[in-house]
């Protein structure tokens, strides 16, 4: 028998506003609106108190101010929200190895097969809500269901601090009365088409004639019908490390000489190296992509035995790969990327390479300057500013 899937969706209640109310007792119980305060700003989060005035997220700030003139308007502190978000995700990771953050304030957890720890997945959701409140004094709403789509629908059913469960067998009924706009993939246009055919609710869509729907909507029909029946087999995918880091440039005029190509590869290698180190990775495979005027494209790779992260090493491989390519025509695009990534500097060395350490120190200093003043603050003698700007506008 196949294992019953259980997914939990955790959605923080009025997250940005709740964090501010937590940290500033004087604004608790008052309408708090976080968002861009300039002329064209929009609301990113409204506290439940503000929602009573009809203020909701994505609303133009001017409209919010009209509806709730006595509200407390704040620009928000995104660094703080990101930091607290990391604490939330840490808590979630205690409950399952499979956590997929969707944004700062919501995430999916796959808790299938954990019956031996908790007899009911609802208990896990309760525990999570308790932990978040205990540790962070914030409330979250939770949805528990056999798949991601339903779990998200469920978490929205009771807010704030709600907990809704949709059990196997209840899938279609639980969402039948919701408007079709709530389905993933149903936008204004699709809703319009369905509405003309008299389909307004998810339940109506689930019962509609699939042939008719397919004629009206094409391939989308199958997907939204499955969702309407409460079926969704998308996996919970935990945050992935990047597979590769790369950079490519299309030139305003095709490159003809080897020297020009090497100069551009050096510029690209430095950009890739900087990004690589900024993200704290080292990599083993360097790939050069070269597109000729005729659009014929070559990709060549070199793999090192040990991971690298210095610009020079990336360039050494890129230059070597380029040297092996035969150039019969002009080059319109060059790209350099590095893959086979791993987090850098974790394995301790018994015999550190002294010259390598010195090069790394130089690199770190250059990186610090670049991080502070931008990428063009320092350049190698052979790469002047003009060359680094030969990109197409």
């Amino acid at each position, binding site marked *: 028998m196949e294992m019953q899937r259980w997914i939990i969706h955790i959605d923080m209640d009025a997250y940005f506003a709740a964090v501010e109310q937590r940290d500033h007792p004087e604004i608790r119980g008052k309408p708090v609106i976080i968002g861009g305060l300039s002329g064209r700003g929009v609301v990113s989060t409204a506290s439940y108190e503000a929602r009573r005035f009809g203020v909701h997220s994505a609303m133009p700030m001017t409209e919010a101010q009209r509806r709730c003139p006595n509200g407390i308007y704040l620009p928000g502190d995104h660094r703080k929200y990101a930091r607290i978000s990391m604490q939330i995700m840490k808590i979630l*990771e205690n409950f399952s*190895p*499979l*956590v997929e953050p969707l944004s700062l304030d919501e995430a999916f957890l796959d808790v299938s097969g954990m019956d031996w720890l908790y007899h009911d997945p609802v208990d896990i959701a309760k525990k999570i809500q308790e932990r978040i409140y205990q540790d962070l004094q914030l409330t979250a709403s939770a949805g528990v269901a056999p798949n991601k789509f339903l779990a998200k629908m469920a978490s929205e059913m009771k807010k704030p601090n709600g907990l809704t469960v949709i059990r196997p067998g209840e899938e279609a009924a639980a969402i039948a009365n919701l408007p079709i706009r709530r389905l993933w993939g149903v936008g204004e246009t699709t809703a319009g088409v369905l509405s003309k055919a008299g389909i307004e609710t998810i339940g109506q869509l689930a019962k509609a004639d699939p042939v008719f729907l397919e004629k009206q909507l094409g391939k989308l029909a199958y997907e939204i019908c499955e969702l309407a029946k409460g079926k969704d087999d998308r996996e919970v995918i*935990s*945050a*992935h*490390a990047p597979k590769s880091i790369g950079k490519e440039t299309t030139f305003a005029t095709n490159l003809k000489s080897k020297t020009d190509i090497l100069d551009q590869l050096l510029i690209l290698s430095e950009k890739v190296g900087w990004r690589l180190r900024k993200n704290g990775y080292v990599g083993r495979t360097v790939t050069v992509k070269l597109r000729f005027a005729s659009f014929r494209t070559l990709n060549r790779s070199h793999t*090192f*035995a*040990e991971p690298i992260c210095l610009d020079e090493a990336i360039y050494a491989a890129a230059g070597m790969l380029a040297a092996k390519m035969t150039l019969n025509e002009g080059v319109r695009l060059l790209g350099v990327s590095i893959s*086979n*990534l*791993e*987090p850098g*500097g*974790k*394995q*301790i*060395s*018994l*015999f*550190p*390479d002294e010259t390598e350490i010195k090069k790394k120190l130089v690199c770190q200093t250059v990186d610090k300057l670049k991080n502070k003043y931008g990428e063009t603050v320092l350049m190698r003698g052979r790469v002047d500013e003009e060359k680094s700007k030969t990109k197409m506008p």
Partner: protein
Amino acid sequence: MKISCTKNDLMHAVLSVQKAIAIKTTHPVITGVYFSADQDLLELQATDYDIGISCTIPAKVEQSGKIVLSGKYLQELVRKLPGDEVNISSDEENKMIRITAGSAQFNLLSIPPDEFPVLKPFETDKNIIIQDHVFKDLIRKTVFACSSDEARPVFTGALLETDQQSKSIRMVATNTHRLALKQIKNISENKPLKMIISAKILNELAKIMTSDQQQDIKISWHKNQVGFQFDKIYMNANLIDGQFPDYNRVIPSNFETVATISTDHLSEAVERVALLAKDAEYNVIKFQFNKNELMITSNNPDIGKACETLPIQLTGKEIEIAFNARYIMDILKNIDHDQITFSLNSSLSPASIQPQDDEEYIYIITPVRTK
């Protein structure tokens, strides 16, 4: 040339020299195998200039001579010959070589043998003789720890050196993240020796030292070359040029935590827990050394977690540390004793794994930072 020999002997010779046949070269003669027959002996040779191997087998020599045959086809050809006996002969101008065995006959074009850079053992008194099983043991217990990173060539080879005071010979290999040292004391020879030999060559050497009977191996050196002579085989190779770092400096002299563990139990547990370790992240597995037990865990956010607990005897303080699982498995495979001693200082300093009560085999491993 006109000779006959057994198929088994010929196959043995071909397999022995195989590794030295040049593949990419501008000098076609070294893509071949050199045959030289004289006085009831047939010698096969191959070289790619980095490594040269010669193997001599008994043969009935009716007419002595020298030929070179394409290396690419030789191994499969000899393997598939029918019967037990093989006849090899050349025509008068030495242009065509005929190989016959049972009902099969091959006529092969000869490569002119005069240009072949014939291998000769160098005349030198710089040599030592040790038993082959001793030498094989040195190789097996250390060379796996070498690096494959050509950027720092000295680590792609193992250091072979003698110590005149303790009358010992030792081999040391490291990829800078782990180091293996095997030493054998009280050897009869007592000449100063210090050289770095490529891991590729040592592995090949171990592979062709196939004799069941114990025998001596003579290691001689001259300028930047080393020669190995044993049985009917002679191999010479270029040494790796460079300074091997002072390895004594990285072997800790004392430890704050010392644990004794069953080699097999640890090996099996590490292999299981490592199943969930991420290749792209140093195969990290965590070790929690407690008073009476060792807990080994791995955590792969995409797959799940693994955990296993083993009984141990521990003296000193408890400690938590992370290692690359592969580096642990590598050493456990090569320990013959049923108990190991795992010695540690802190979660960021090198640790040591040794067979219990054996000071002659040392393995140093660096931890992985997990924070």
